[in-house]
């Protein structure tokens, strides 16, 4: 063991429980969809495969049972700490996510983070290596977001964040112009210098995660940046990045673990 698996286990369990409470608040459980009728797979090959095999269609006949199965299996897995149990949980989580997205007609990209959080527990002897692989993947996702902004030309486009805010809040401008987010956006749209600073700050908040590839010494800073990133994206753009909280256990290494760590 590179470090004490227990601390990751406890933090991950806490995050997952919080995540489920948040899911319930948001209406993210299958039974909360209230027996939807339409499906939309997008052009995602995995969603296509699941729908061709009629998996979401079958699950949606018993939504509350599958929701209960997910929650109970999570609790059971974290209490018993059995590898096979986590493997079944991983499968249930993936089916749940695909079913929800297909019936909610959405394609939430970041939903993959929840199964990623469970993944290291599915491997007993290789726990440390898989844990590190998942950590690298989280880092990659955030750093790649900043790289995409450079490659695709959005980073240096004049008034990019101004235009993003204008496009993002079109519904608010008609339906709810007194909304808190809309008022902040209106202020920012009128103060382009400040908005440009915010835009580059967002870029830096993503790019700074490159540090994580080389050292874990600054993980507490990355954790702080991650939380600021999640909150500011929600306040400014009403984009929900709560799935990113699954990254938190990969940024917290307790004192006890640092003594044992060889990385």
């Amino acid at each position: 063991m590179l470090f004490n698996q227990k601390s990751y286990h406890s933090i991950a369990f806490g995050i997952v429980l919080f995540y489920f409470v948040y899911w319930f608040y948001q209406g993210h459980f299958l039974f909360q969809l209230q027996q939807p009728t339409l499906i939309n797979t997008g052009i995602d090959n995995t969603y296509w495969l699941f729908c061709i095999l009629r998996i979401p269609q079958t699950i949606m006949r018993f939504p509350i049972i599958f929701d209960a199965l997910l929650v109970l299996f999570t609790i059971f897995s974290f209490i018993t700490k059995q590898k096979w149990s986590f493997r079944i949980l991983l499968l249930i989580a993936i089916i749940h996510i695909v079913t929800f997205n297909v019936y909610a007609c959405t394609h939430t990209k970041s939903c993959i983070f929840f199964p990623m959080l469970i993944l290291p527990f599915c491997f007993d002897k290789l726990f440390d290596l898989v844990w590190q692989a998942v950590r690298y993947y989280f880092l990659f996702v955030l750093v790649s977001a900043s790289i995409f902004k450079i490659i695709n030309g959005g980073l240096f486009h004049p008034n990019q964040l101004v235009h993003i805010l204008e496009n993002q809040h079109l519904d608010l401008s008609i339906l709810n112009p007194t909304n808190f987010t809309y008022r902040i956006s209106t202020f920012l749209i009128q103060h382009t210098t400040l908005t440009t600073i915010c835009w580059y700050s967002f870029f830096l908040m993503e790019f700074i995660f490159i540090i994580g590839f080389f050292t874990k010494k600054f993980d507490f800073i990355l954790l702080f940046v991650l939380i600021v990133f999640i909150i500011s994206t929600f306040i400014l753009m009403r984009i929900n990045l709560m799935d990113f909280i699954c990254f938190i256990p990969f940024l917290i290494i307790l004192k006890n673990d640092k003594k044992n760590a060889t990385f």
Partner: protein
Amino acid sequence: MHSIYLIKVWKESKALFIGIIIFIFFQVFFIAKRIQNFPFFIFDMYSRPIEKPTTFSIYEIKANGKSVDYTSFKNTQENTILNSIQTYSTAKKEFPKSIYETLIEHRFKNKISTTNYQFIKNGLSNNEAAIYEFDNWLNRYCIQSNIDFSVYKNTYNFQNKSKIDSILILSEDAI
């Protein structure tokens, strides 16, 4: 050199090493193809230049004669409502064809038997009953109107926010 992650993985588990390499390959492949495929996350939102809109369209849900402010709903609920209305609108327009008819044909037609093709198509499509039942679901999910409700797609001028066009998507007398 031994501290490089992939070398460590290679030494400890060849199977995991191959698994990681395959994952990296598909991640790069889907980035190059610009296709979002579960579980490969491409976080490129707003990475391309965005321009100021001249006109824009939003859905308006009217229940009991009043506009429903779905922006005050929970994030997940709002997304579900808007995406479902969009799916309904497309499915109804395209019916009896699937909304991904062209893609399904391109991928499967004349490559597999007619029976299998139909099986695949049915799994990816919304049938008539699903489209017909959509208004009941929408009412149950968010509107909960006991009089009537309707959904419009309104187009506005960005500058002065004046309504340019309004298309009726759905109209229902609820019971």
